[in-house]
């Protein structure tokens, strides 16, 4: 029979191993996750909040799951968190619009990307003089959320179709459709200018 204190030590060692492994995993995905969140939310602090919450939830709830499940789980949590923040922002915007004293003063500074999208004269003028990454980022910002999500999970995180489907909570077929539409839309926006 194994003494209780030996079992306790083994459990503690196992937890330390899991924590180390989780730390390695999160260190490997955190920057990509931040880029994805930043593109969706267009705000550094909100993006950081989303990533941190996703890290926290993964560590608290899913650390004991097999390590190969962490990646799709993490991105699924992250996408949910991003959507929550977007919804909250939308509701806050509507409420603030109803408050008379908020109409003229105390408004958030304008989002340069959103402004560029709103007042863009045309693709050629829009992308002229911009870096390639900025052009891509602007084009990604115009995509529907699911298309952008599929494109980034495939090309930034390098997930395959099945992993992307698990992360997005949909079928492989849906992932292929979203991805295909994303690529077509990006090509139509950037194709001839993105050289």
């Amino acid at each position, binding site marked *: 029979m194994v003494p209780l204190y030996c079992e306790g030590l083994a459990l503690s060692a196992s937890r330390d191993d899991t*924590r180390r492994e989780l730390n390695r995993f999160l260190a490997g995905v955190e920057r990509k996750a931040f880029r994805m969140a930043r593109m969706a939310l267009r705000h550094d602090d909100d993006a950081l909040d989303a990533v941190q919450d996703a890290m*926290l939830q993964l560590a608290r709830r899913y650390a004991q799951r097999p390590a190969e499940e962490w990646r799709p789980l993490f991105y699924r949590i992250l996408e949910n968190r991003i959507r929550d923040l977007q919804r909250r922002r939308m509701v806050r915007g509507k409420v603030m619009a109803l408050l008379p004293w908020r109409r003229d003063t105390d408004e958030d500074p304008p989002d340069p990307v959103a402004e560029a999208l709103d007042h863009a004269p045309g693709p050629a003028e829009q992308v002229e003089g911009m870096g390639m990454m900025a052009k891509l980022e602007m084009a990604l910002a115009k995509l529907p959320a699911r298309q952008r999500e599929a494109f980034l999970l495939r090309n930034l995180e390098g997930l395959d179709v099945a992993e992307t489907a698990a992360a997005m909570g949909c079928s492989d077929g849906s992932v292929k459709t979203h991805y295909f539409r994303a690529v077509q839309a990006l090509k139509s926006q950037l194709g001839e200018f993105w050289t």
Partner: protein
Amino acid sequence: MNVSNEPDEFEKRAAALLRASVDGMDGATRARLAHARAAALEPATRARHWLDLRYLAPAGATAVAVLATVLVLNHGKPDALVNEGAGIALYDMDLLADADALDIAEETDLDFIEWAAAQGEQGPGG
């Protein structure tokens, strides 16, 4: 659709750009991410304590605001929160706490008061 699932030149280029943007991330953001990771991996008790503080502060502020609102709305209406029975009890408490009243009670000749009361009951001719 790209049936072969092999990325074309456009996709490869986009992927390379996205990865380069991640590799070139500024030091301040990397540091914030590392800090966030460390916080997420802290033992649950400490993290919960941090979460409690995060959510207790606004809850406390809300409670104070509600209390202040109630006090402001009831300003000038001292009896609004006190029912009749409670008012009587408060009156008794005031009497008990009144040191002068206790002195008077000690100095009073209770025998005389009883005698005077008996005289009153018997009437003036008594």
